[in-house]
């Protein structure tokens, strides 16, 4: 069994978990003497315990017959949905979100496990010989599988975790979904940002110029670009831009506007900027400052002044990357980014080499989920993306999170290790 496992992925996994734990230790450590790493009263002790649990989980996952995951994906998905539903009755409210079950001294967050279940179910459904993504009905069903858990998660409320389900787009795209969906989505985001930055009038003028260029060069290359289509696009863009503007100015509340104005850096009045830094932008500002103060090589392990002073909120969970930035500097944070990049590239490669469609699609789901988490989380911590609260895989403090990602990843590694035997 062991020889068939992809050890590169496993090594990256353990490196990330180890670095993650060290940073959790630094972010939650207080006092002068090194504490017992198994002290369950401390967060780093708890996290260490979860790592041990994850190791046990890995052994269990790898011991189970690979076919089990495909065969029981529907059941797993159902259980997962039920666990999400159950939160409405038995859920425990922590920090305003009812996302946890409390069992004894432990809390479990089912949404962290629902991702793996959804990935399994989606892969199962798509790999079914009768499913055809070109068929709108089948596509709608696939969307349904993805949307169901997301819709259950949104009212917890945990919109960040729900947003993760958008990453399944990559699976659908790999299996034949038109790229138009992505392009339209990206264009909408682009138009939205451009409208806030430059105002709707300039956006329309810019779009018109762009379309004119497309028309001109398109026709020169003898491709038929219909004027009427371009006019339609322009009309749509204009309508979209003006409605964005209207919604932003009239329907959004100030706190929403502040969020976007922080993200796109719309505010240049120093007094207001200072105000934003103290309120809505506090997290981002502190996180950027902490990372910036790290310099090239960082302040050293346990030496981060802002980490020690607890200046960055949620530093051991969503903002754990700022500890990396402060204590390990540019070198350390770049290493982490590269590790994630390697992991994603390796997983894509593994997914592509799968012989069974189920394994491939599940692999894609895993890759997309980890990628999405990484991109959104780090983007938020370094101030490039708006604040969306999702954890950094393998890094952020949290038993359910770590366990969820471990299960997600190792089911795929089990499937990958088993690919030779698939014919049997």
């Amino acid at each position, binding site marked *: 069994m062991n020889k068939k496992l992809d050890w590169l992925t496993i090594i990256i996994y353990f490196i990330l978990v180890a670095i993650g734990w060290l940073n959790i230790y630094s972010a939650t450590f207080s006092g*002068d003497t090194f504490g017992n790493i198994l002290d369950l009263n401390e967060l780093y002790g708890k996290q260490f315990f979860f790592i041990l649990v994850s190791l046990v989980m890995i052994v269990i996952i790898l011991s189970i017959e690979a076919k089990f995951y495909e065969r029981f994906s529907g059941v797993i998905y159902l259980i997962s949905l039920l666990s999400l539903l159950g939160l409405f009755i038995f859920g425990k409210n922590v920090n305003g979100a009812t996302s946890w079950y409390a069992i004894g001294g432990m809390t479990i967050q089912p949404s962290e496990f629902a991702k793996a279940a959804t990935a399994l179910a989606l892969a199962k459904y798509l790999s079914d010989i009768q499913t055809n993504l070109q068929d709108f009905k089948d596509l709608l069903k696939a969307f349904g599988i993805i949307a169901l858990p997301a819709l259950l998660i949104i009212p917890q409320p945990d919109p960040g975790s729900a947003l993760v389900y958008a990453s399944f787009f*990559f699976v659908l*795209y*790999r299996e*034949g979904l038109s790229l138009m969906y992505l392009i339209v989505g990206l264009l909408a985001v682009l138009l939205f940002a451009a409208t806030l930055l430059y105002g709707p009038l300039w956006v329309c003028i810019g779009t018109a110029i762009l379309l004119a260029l497309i028309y001109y060069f398109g026709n020169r290359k003898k491709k038929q670009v219909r004027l009427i289509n371009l006019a339609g696009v322009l009309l749509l863009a204009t309508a979209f831009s003006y409605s964005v503007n209207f919604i932003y100015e009239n329907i959004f509340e100030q706190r929403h506007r502040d969020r976007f104005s922080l993200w796109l850096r719309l505010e240049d009045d120093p007094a207001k900027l*200072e105000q934003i830094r103290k309120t809505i932008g506090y997290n981002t500002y502190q996180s*950027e*400052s*902490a*990372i*910036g*103060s*790290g*310099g*090239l090589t960082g302040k050293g392990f346990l*030496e981060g*002044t*802002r980490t*020690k*002073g*607890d*200046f960055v909120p949620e530093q051991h969970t969503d903002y754990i990357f700022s500890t990396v*930035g402060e204590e390990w*500097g*540019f070198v350390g*944070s*770049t290493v982490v*980014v*590269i590790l*994630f*990049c390697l992991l*994603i*590239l390796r997983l*894509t490669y593994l997914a*592509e080499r799968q012989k069974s469609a189920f394994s491939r699609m599940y692999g*894609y789901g895993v*890759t*997309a989920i980890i*990628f999405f988490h990484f*991109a959104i989380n*780090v*983007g938020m911590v*370094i*101030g*490039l993306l708006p604040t969306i609260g999702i954890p950094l895989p393998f890094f952020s403090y949290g038993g359910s999170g770590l366990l969820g990602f471990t299960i997600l990843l190792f089911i795929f590694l089990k499937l990958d290790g088993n690919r030779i035997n698939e014919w049997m």
Partner: protein
Amino acid sequence: MRKILLSSIMIIIAIVYIGRLSYLQLIDNTNKNPLNDTAIKAVYDYPERGHIYDRNGKLLVANQPSYDVMVIPRDVKPLDTAEFCALLNISKEDFVRKFKKAYSYSPRLPSVFVPQMSKAEYASLQEKMRKYEGFYIQKRSLRHYMTEAGANVLGYISEVNERDLQNNPYYQSGELIGRQGVEKQYEEILRGRKGVKFIQKDRFNRVIGPYKQGIYDTLPIQGKDIYLTIDNDLQEYGERLMVNKRGGIVALEPKTGEILALVSAPSYDPDLLVGRKRSKNYTELYYDSIAKPLYDRGLLAMYPPGSPFKTVNALIGLQEGVIDESTTFTCYHGYRYGRGAFMGCHCPSGQRNNLIRGIYESCNAYFANTYRRIIESYPNAQQGIDAWENHVKSFGLGDYLGYDLPIGKSGKVPDTELYNSYYGENRWFATNTLSNAIGQGEVLTTPIQLANLTAIIANRGYYYTPHVIKDIENDTIDRAKYKTKHQTTVAPEHFEPVIDGMHEVYKKGTARWVQVPDIEIAGKTGTAENFTKIDSVRVQLTDHSIFVAFAPVDDPKIALAVFVENGYWGSRWAGKIAGLLIEKYLKGEITRTDMEKFVLEGSLQEEYDKPLSGKPFKINDGSKQMYPPGYGPYKPKSNSGQ
């Protein structure tokens, strides 16, 4: 395409994120400085400023504690401003204004909110301060003056201004810096170096502990005590003698160049510029544009030197070999050097003067002859002036001298360039510059230069750069600058006849009125014409009274220059003051109490009021002035050349 989309996006995002990280961590420097780190607070430990002693070890300047209320605007929480203002004794408007100012300086660095509270104010405050977050009390030390004299020498300290903050990164808002005088010149020695402790804080502003176990912390370095060359008794006495007069006194020890006294009148009590009253008093002193108490006349006032400069021409004449001790010139109640060009003199017509008599009678004609011989011994006047200028400059004239006080004037020694610009290229002759012969031409000197000139004569030909620093506590730095002998271009033997002449000035010449029992003085009186503008009309005022002297003649211990604005003639005020100071310094007591009484009670205020009165007035008018018995008016026959 479908297979590589995710990988491609991942690579792009990794590159973008690494780019962003390199901006945050490598390029943008706002977060690199530990002082900018919100998590770290620097706490300063200010060492005591060094004390200042006079040459005899008398303590002149010590310290007293003072307390500043400081503010870190960002840390301030909403507070009961009415109560707080009442506590600090400021108005609500003040509060708002000060807070805004502090905020615009920096929201996170401390600024002074209310400076320099007294100990009593502090006592009532310190308990209550705790409840006003963002405010705290910083102890500092202020100067405590043990003397009322020497304000111009000592200088003062005050809070750094924005320019200081920009120019010198050492200072932070609210710290003190030396201004003027010794405080400025020896700022870094007196100040020492503040210590700093970096303290790690959490986001609730609670202290967690020292930052990095204190590896960046520094201990304060104590300021060093310094000893001045000033003799405080002499300085004080000089200032007392100058009450109700304006002018300057510079007294040197010729053998070392040490400045014994540097008086500028009118002066002020240095204690006026301490603490919260400083700014009000400073403004008053600063805007007194009539008496100009902040103007250090001893260092800054430039005048034609008048007769004392004749000694320089005598020395140059001797060195150049154009005259000797026995050279005589006949005075024709003046000196005619061209058609309609006549320099008056008070000698009776036909009097034959040798060098010594020329000096003690201060004969203009004698030095006009000497000067012409000097210049005309060269092929042309230009070369003559070049040679003459070279000699004059070797006496430290036309030069800042390099003494250790932060202000000064260079004075002026004319050269060929100057005369070329006046008369055209080489179109002038010795006679065009003849006023230089009697110190009334283009030559300008400051009192300290005159005192240094006198010290050179006392030393028979050399000087050490004048200085006020005698010793610095535990200091090994070599003050070689003040131990370098500057030799003049005139050989030592030529000084003897000139000194004899100056001794005669005191024995039987223009300064015979100021004789002091048992002390042999060599001196030279001087009178300087001066002008002012009243309603943009040039008006001549009563002459300045000048006297240079050293004593004892054989073993000079003190050389000084005294000048009294509008004092009429040399021996009338300056000579008497010089005599009293010499006696005070050499004997420690005054026997010429009659002379002392005259000077102490005498006032020139009436003279100073004249040009301001708006009425016509007479100058050089001795008739209305009082003379003690035995001091008849010595009426010069000419305004110039005394």
